[in-house]
């Protein structure tokens, strides 16, 4: 289990990275934290001719908050965000989800950009991006563009990124104070990729729901927002009966896979159970935060 040979470049600026990508296109692969790519290289499931390592591009390792929201550079490590206790109030869903990503030594290397770009449907970041209406800043030699997370995930492990592009930053709008949230995950072992997970985000005004997000991990080939279920909540006062119906609806909107860890039917069952608890918890939190 040793990687196949490749040519290796570790430029220290984004411009040089983009030049290399332009030059080598499909033959090149970006290496960020290596926590997904590393195993794939070792197993020779990925055999790129060129590796372009981002680890020396210092410009991509940052995060900052302002009145527009949170911006995180692609090479920011998961553990950097994990250790910032402020995020627990400013971005509670994000802060709650990060400890679910593998283990500490994985998060010390694994990057935000890598997780978002790798687009594993069982990973936390893609679903969080959906739940929080995140946007993705992309660059190539010609310039930059921004894509909504909801347009970014195309099909299994495939995103809107072109071979000559890199993800440079992700942006999350500020948290709406009168909101409640919940993040729940079901896996066979602690730290494993989820069999099913839910990120729920509800905003209540005068007891009525004005905004709802239900994003599902492991519910299909890409992370999914169950938009029909979400819309059932809008304008409504929350009741247990309603939440049950919404959870049922959410599970119907999924297109889960069957594999050795869980069948599609069981994943659907889990979705209905977990969405319900997530919505209950989110409602409770929204009520507490003054969104009644």
């Amino acid at each position, binding site marked *: 289990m040793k990687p196949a040979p490749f040519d290796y470049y570790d430029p220290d600026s984004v411009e040089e990275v983009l030049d290399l990508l332009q030059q080598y296109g499909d033959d090149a692969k970006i290496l960020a934290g290596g926590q997904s790519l590393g195993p794939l290289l070792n197993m020779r499931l990925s055999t790129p001719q060129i590796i372009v390592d981002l680890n020396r591009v210092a410009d991509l390792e940052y995060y900052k908050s302002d009145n527009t929201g949170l911006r995180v550079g692609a090479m920011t490590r998961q553990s950097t965000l994990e250790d910032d206790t402020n995020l627990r109030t400013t971005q509670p869903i994000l802060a709650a989800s990060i400890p679910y990503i593998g283990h500490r030594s994985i998060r010390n290397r694994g990057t935000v950009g890598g997780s978002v770009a790798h687009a594993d449907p069982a990973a936390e970041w893609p679903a969080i991006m959906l739940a929080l209406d995140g946007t993705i800043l992309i660059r190539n030699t010609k310039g930059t563009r921004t894509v909504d997370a909801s347009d970014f995930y195309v099909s299994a492990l495939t995103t809107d990124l072109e071979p000559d592009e890199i993800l440079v930053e992700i942006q999350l709008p500020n948290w709406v104070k009168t909101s409640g949230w919940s993040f729940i995950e079901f896996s*066979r*072992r602690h730290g494993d990729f989820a069999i099913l997970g839910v990120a729920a985000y509800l905003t209540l005004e005068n007891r009525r729901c004005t905004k709802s997000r239900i994003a599902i991990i492991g519910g299909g080939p890409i992370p999914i927002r169950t938009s029909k279920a979400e819309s059932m909540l809008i304008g409504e006062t929350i009741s247990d009966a309603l939440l049950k119906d919404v959870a049922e609806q959410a599970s119907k909107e999924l297109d889960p896979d069957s594999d*050795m860890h869980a069948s599609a039917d069981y994943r659907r069952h889990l979705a209905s159970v977990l969405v319900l608890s997530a919505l209950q918890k989110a409602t409770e939190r929204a009520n507490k935060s003054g969104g009644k």
Partner: protein
Amino acid sequence: MVSCLGQHNYMKIEHSKGIGESIKRLEDKRFLQGQGHYIDDLQLPDMLHAAVLRSPYAHATITNIDVDFALEQPGVVTILTFADLHSVKPIPIRLNPYGSLEPFLQYPLANKRVRYVGDPVALIIAHSRYQAEDVLDNIVVQYDPLPVNIDAEDKVSCPLHHDAKDNVASNFVQQKGDVVEAFNKAEHITKLRFTSGRHSGVPLETRGLIANYDATQEKLKVWGPTKVTHFNRGVLAHMLEMEEHTIEMIEPDVGGGFGVRGEFYPEDYLIPYAALMLKRPVKWIEDRLENLMACNHSREQIYEMEMALKKDGTILGIKVLLSNDQGGYIRTHGIIVPELSAAIFPGPYRIPNYRCEVRSVLTNKTPAGTYRAPGRYECNSSRERLLDLAASELMIDPVKIRSMNLIQPEDMPYEVGTESLGENIVYDSGDYPFALQEVVRLSKYEENRHVDHDNLSNKKVGYGIACFVEKTGLGPFEGARIEIDQTGAITVSTGAANVGQGLETTLAQIASSVLTVSPDSIQVLHGDTDLIPYGVGSFASRATVMAGSAVYYAAQKIRKKLLKIAAHTMNCQVEQLIISDGDICMIDHQDKRLTLTQVAQQSSPRNCPPDIEPGLDFTHYFRCNQMTFAHGATIVKVEIDITTCAIVPKHVWIVYDIGKAINPQMVKGQIEGGAVQGLGGALLEEFNYDPSGQLTSGSFVDYLLPTTTETPLLESKRLDRSPSTLNPIQVKGAGECGIAGIGGALANAVADALGDSGNNVNVLPITPEKVWQWLMPMQDKTN
């Protein structure tokens, strides 16, 4: 006829320094500092590296292999296929080699046909492992796929082996009494089909070998073998057509054995073969993906059981049809696993009438062998589940149905009426009802079971019990040699192996108890075939029992000689002397003493009195042809969330009796380690195959080993009530007591938690999805 040679004449141990004390392990200092010598830590000058090309098909004919292009690639030294192997033989069976199994043996490389995904097809030797792997894809093999059989109960499938009419490698019956009569008399019959899933030992260190031909010594040296090095040397000599003494096998530090590691596998022939051919050292380190498809699997068995009972719960008889999924070949274990299953199935209970028919069937999967408590983890799980099902049908308490059927202390020694490994199964000693009572008491089963049951939340709690008997201390012999050199340094050598269980510490403790020195002053050497002429090895929880007894006797011999020489030097009678704190002193004048070093100097050929043979060097072979049986009982408490169907083991209690512990903390470690492995097999670990025979859980992402967060609290209690009478140190093996009962106890706990749906529980591992399926019909009703 039972005999354990030398079991009489125990010498009184003056200071039992050593035995029974939880001293810190002697091997740990090097391990803690990263100074162990595991096989991959070893490098020889000019060493080449091997990789194995393995079949991607579960069943296919090989029509052509083209290595020409691969041979031209950088770093490649040679590539071997079956056709290149000179006068190659199949790998023989180690345990109970029935001739009828010969058509099913595995050759080191596939000969025109592959029978599982992972079957070795070619060996590549290159200057680095990287380069060897580079050409795996450059060897062009043409496969003609054949029909695939992954079901041990499938009777019509295409035979895997040319010489065989079907895939049944073996079909035999173990029986006692008259089951027909028992079922005629039955007042109640309980039926259960129970499946034990495929999983295995999966040591954290994968296998590895280095072979080198040493021209100065004219010897082939092989580093990396373990477990049964003497036997494996014989196999290699036979297969390479060499004299046995021209081969030396050397055991390095070993990162876990668990039964799978150290058997003779195809690579154990291929790597030495290549080293001899190339006259250069060759290293092969199995990678994890190979390990999961190449190293023995285990456990996959289906039990069709029927039990005849009286209304009060008394067992009249049991009928079992046991299908054992053997995988693509018969390997070194032959059919010992299902044989053990059939022999031990009656367990600690009086089963007056018993019939077990075994079918061991070849399938297109990785060949199966032994894994810690082989055959027993499976049969114990099945039997204990059957008992709980009967209890539930007859509305008897699970403790009661067990108590009333357990073998009583006064029944000992108890002849079960079955046989395995060429021995009649005779339980030598043990108080089985007491172990059950103790575990019930320890877990507060009676008090808590009902309280915990009554909760109304989504979390349902269940308790499950299993009782077990464990065969340990398998013969026929083990040897130990003890030497004291002229500086007084003590060295113990044995043919048993240290697979990570701490053999060095245990044997040092036993020797130190006789010689009254500190255990850490004793060096223990093991696993090198040149250390001692004969050796058997470490399996079947035998090393402490057999090698420990040999060390004990060898130490007694050396002690006697020490006293004799000291008596001569001190001008007194042997009877006037004792050995204490490592010195030889006069009983009445303890200040008159000689140190061990002084006596050792007196024993040298220069100083030794003419009428005494010089030297302090004794070997003892402890021989015993009867196993000694440990026993115990396990209770598991689980919590099941009936919405998500998550299963959380909360607490495990294990009460066991191994006669006596040499190092109680180490024994506890064996119990806990085994218990968690058993929980892994009961909840997480499974080798899954798709219908085309592809292994779908072939990495650590999908083959799930338990970690700290999946491990409950474990409480264990050692009883020491039934010391073994078959050996001088009175011990029974401890290695398998933790794992033996836990599968059944867990399955029963899940059933208990599931209430009315619990009778569905019929399989291991139990996944959340299975719980969901078992609960579903109930939920449909309530909805």
